[in-house]
């Protein structure tokens, strides 16, 4: 398989920087797979699972939105939060899920409801990815 350079950056760290064979990410319109020699491409990402095949091994991660860009044969994921499946704190995610559900029940404004909804989505995604 041909490899290409993949970078995954968050405000807190550089989660991945190296050669990858394949990347599967969830965009707002569905899953996409990026292989080497992909054309110039920009798409928003949804909250979902990201899979990367590097050095012959698949790794899964939870990704909370962001943007996927391919320029000049290099792919970059720019996101707010990104955790590999072995880094996820499932207990914390469960706690966040309960808290978000609680908030959605006693919501006051539409804005707060939306915030809680996003938090719930992220928590569910983390639980799903982490318990695989």
């Amino acid at each position, binding site marked *: 398989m041909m490899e290409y350079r993949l*970078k995954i*950056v*968050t*405000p*807190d*760290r*550089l989660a991945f*920087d190296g050669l990858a064979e394949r990347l599967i990410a969830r*965009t*707002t*319109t569905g899953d*996409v797979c990026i292989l080497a020699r992909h*054309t*110039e*491409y*920009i*798409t*928003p990402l949804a909250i979902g699972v990201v899979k990367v095949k590097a050095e012959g091994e698949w790794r899964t991660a939870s990704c909370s*939105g*962001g*943007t996927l*860009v391919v*320029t000049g044969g290099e792919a*970059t994921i*720019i996101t*707010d939060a990104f955790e590999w499946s072995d880094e996820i704190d499932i207990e914390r995610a469960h706690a966040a899920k309960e808290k978000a559900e609680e908030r959605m029940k006693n919501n006051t404004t539409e804005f707060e409801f939306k915030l809680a909804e996003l938090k719930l989505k992220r928590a569910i995604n983390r639980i799903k990815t982490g318990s695989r």
Partner: protein
Amino acid sequence: MAQSTKLIKNRIKSVEGTKQITKAMELVATSKLRRAKENMERIQPYFKSLKSLATELMKNNTDFSSPFCKSDGEKSACHVVIAGDRGLAGGYNANLFRSLNIKDGDYIVPIGKKVCEYFAKKNVHILTYDYLLAAKVRSGDCMRIAQLIAADYKLGKFGRVDVSYTKFVNVLTHEPETETLLPFVPEIERERKPGVLTIYEPGVEAVFNQLIPQYISGIIYGAVTSSVASELSSRRNAMQAANKNADEMIEDLTLKYNRSRQSAITQEITEIVAGSDM
């Protein structure tokens, strides 16, 4: 004479007390600065990717239908101003405020307590009071600020958005800087690379709607980390200078004290000698 030696001694004590405080502040700033610098370095890859993506987009984009690309110079502007929470940091706050170009009726997003104090008596609108402590702003907070700004910009509340912060060049150099965030258009007409066709999925509008708040939030967060590092490093430098001054003063005063003590002794001896001669 005895009166004056006492006075000098008191002054030495008070200068020593001040020196202790400035020394402690210097140490605190030094240890905090190390953390702040680490923070700043950690965000660099994200910051750089975001910036290069933005310039790439500006270069190749031909579709300016997005509301974020429309500029309106007539309308008032929105400024995100990032400065310190406390004083005693040399010219850190004053330098930034001096560099600002703000007109009456503009909107301000203050980050840092000193910014709020500065704008309290000015004729401007404060957009939000939620993010007052610059040292406590996290990336999530920046996302919320960005969403707020993006939503208001779309509504046409203001025609321009910029961010003013202090750029950390190195420990001794910090430069106040202002960057334009919106409208999202190239400042100068750049050469377009022919043949580069980027696929926007599902469309330019959707990509921009997602990317612009992320871009704003990333730039603001980068600016905050850079400002915090600058503030701590200016405070450290200021406190170092204060320490040095205190040392000089103590040296000076000790010299004076010894002189006056000596002259008091000499006088006493002269008096005794004069008395025994009789």
